[in-house]
């Protein structure tokens, strides 16, 4: 039976995709909504924004509210020798390091070069604080009006920083939201939908191996999910092209190299396939599409929690365990990739673990599908 498994999977995947994409509701949900409605919505919002009327400027990040919180949890007098900004380490003369936000803003010398991460909110808060309170650093006298107390040295090119910051904050959330929700309609339709339509029994009575059928369904759910995720990103891209000011023009200025794209797309596809497998399994445990969708929704909240944790991790001090925790490792690596701080070890660990989770999820799905209880009650 083994040689027939691949054809059965492909036959099933082809049929499932044909069946799913012939449904106008599926087309609207997976393609029309992201590609047409997203840009339309952004355009309307841009047209109605205060900026469009020549009024206020839209800020993407407000620092003023963060400074008090930042100050309450950092020690402005804390010194540290362990640096990882090469430019800062090379400057040996009179080096004094005043640490803000862990390693992200530091004073290298009294005369004052301050290195800071201009794509990190805490680091930006630190530099803002330094601007406000530079007269108090090391007992220095207040500088005459207009003379800065230090020379700020940003980590990223200033034109790129806001975009990178925006991307590192938003991209992990977007990837997880789309990866967890896009395969859900198709996975629910292929599993619980089969039961609802009463077409599962005839399907199981064919001579085709069940592992082949479920593999085909997995393939189709993952593919349809990836198509839908791609459509959402295309929709956002079009939205930004049509209404570049809606998210703040500075936030949209960033450049990414092929390695960044490769890491982000690979992890996004793996996450989508993983969620598709879980949602398909959940679908076979329910009796209706609505139940399957309800059961699949907690995955979104779980993944959001994972992204929040990933966002709170200091990228220069990533705990050893983090690259091995499901979902959190994906959020972390996507964030690193968005900031162009790809760590090969973190990336390799996240990809390998994601493949492992995907295989486990597929295995559970096959096991569930082979069990006679997949038929449910009549």
């Amino acid at each position, binding site marked *: *039976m083994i040689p027939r498994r691949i*054809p059965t999977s492909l036959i099933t995947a082809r049929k499932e995709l044909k069946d799913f994409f012939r449904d106008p509701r599926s087309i609207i949900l997976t393609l029309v909504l992201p590609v047409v409605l997203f840009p339309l919505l952004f355009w309307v919002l841009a047209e109605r924004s205060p900026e469009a009327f020549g009024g206020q400027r839209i800020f993407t990040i407000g620092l003023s509210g963060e400074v008090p919180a930042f100050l309450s949890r950092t020690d402005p007098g804390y010194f540290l020798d362990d640096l990882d900004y090469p430019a800062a380490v090379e400057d040996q003369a009179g080096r004094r390091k005043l640490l803000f936000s862990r390693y992200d803003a530091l004073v290298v010398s009294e005369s004052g070069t301050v290195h800071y991460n201009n794509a990190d909110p805490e680091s930006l808060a630190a530099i803002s604080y330094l601007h406000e309170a530079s007269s108090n650093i090391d007992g220095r006298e207040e500088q005459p009006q207009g003379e800065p107390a230090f020379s700020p040295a940003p980590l990223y090119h200033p034109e790129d920083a806001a975009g990178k910051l925006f991307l590192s904050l938003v991209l992990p959330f977007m990837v997880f939201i789309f990866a967890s929700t896009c395969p859900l309609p198709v996975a629910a339709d292929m599993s619980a939908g089969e039961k609802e339509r009463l077409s599962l*029994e005839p399907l*199981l009575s064919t001579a085709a191996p069940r592992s082949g059928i479920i593999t085909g369904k997995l393939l189709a759910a993952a593919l349809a999910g990836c198509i839908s995720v791609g459509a959402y990103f295309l929709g956002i891209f079009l939205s930004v092209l049509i209404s570049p000011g809606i998210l703040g023009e500075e936030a949209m200025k960033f450049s990414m190299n092929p390695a960044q794209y490769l890491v982000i797309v690979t992890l996004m596809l793996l996450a989508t396939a993983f969620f598709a497998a879980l949602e398909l399994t959940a679908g076979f445990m329910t009796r209706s599409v609505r139940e399957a969708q309800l059961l699949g929704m907690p995955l979104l909240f779980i993944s959001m929690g994972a992204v929040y944790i990933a966002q709170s991790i200091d990228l220069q001090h990533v705990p050893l365990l983090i690259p091995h925790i499901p979902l959190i490792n994906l959020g972390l690596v996507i964030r690193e990739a968005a900031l162009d701080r790809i760590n090969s070890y973190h990336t390799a660990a996240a990809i390998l673990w994601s493949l492992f989770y995907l295989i486990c999820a597929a295995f559970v799905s096959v096991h569930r599908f082979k069990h006679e209880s997949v038929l449910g009650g009549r």
Partner: protein
Amino acid sequence: MQKTRQPTPPGESSVSAEGLGKKFPRSHHWAVKELSFSCYPGTITGLLGENGAGKTTSLRMLSTMLIPTEGSGAVCGHSLREAPARVRQSVGVLFGGTSSLYDRLSAAENILYFARLNGLEPQEGEARLAELSNLFEMGSFLHRRAGTFSTGMRQRCLIARAIIHDPAVLLLDEPATGLDFSTRRSIYAFILQQKELGKTILFSSHDLNAVEEICDSLLVLHEGRLAAQGSPAALRKKGSLETGIRELTGSMQ
């Protein structure tokens, strides 16, 4: 018609059950208990009983969708437990008014999908589809989406889908339920035609007149157990099959 696959040697039963039983998890009673019978090629066996008597569970076990809790069974010499894939190659299963088509696919796409899943090559499937399309007069709606079909068209499509791989054994669960008189007649005519071709047919029904008319033997189930077995003539009491079955099942309570 194409040659029947997995033929059963003459004189040997093509469907057999020996003490077959099924108890579902977390259930206190047996859905089917100690079911033993044999069916032979070129015969029609009727499976009778009230709702919940165990007819569908028996057919599900014979089509390997459910694993028997006890006992054994075989289809065309293949054990239900040891060679379920081979059993499925030998049976065509129809779940009457309850099973459904893929509404967004055409009749041809529905049938050809099952042809491929049952191991037919694309050309074989196309040839067989043409044959069945003629047999069931499906030419006018073969390429229409199934969602637009009437009940009769749907039923013809379901039967064609069930027998696309030309199985030696047909397991039909209430195939004529909910159909009008003429469609019912055409289904019974089809069953008789399959008998002439040497197929083994096991079907459940509540239509006692039809059962009496076309069946060679009957299995009467009551609360999961085999209450009686024999020809329609042997089970008839006071001139009526219904009276005979009532007396048999009543005596078991």
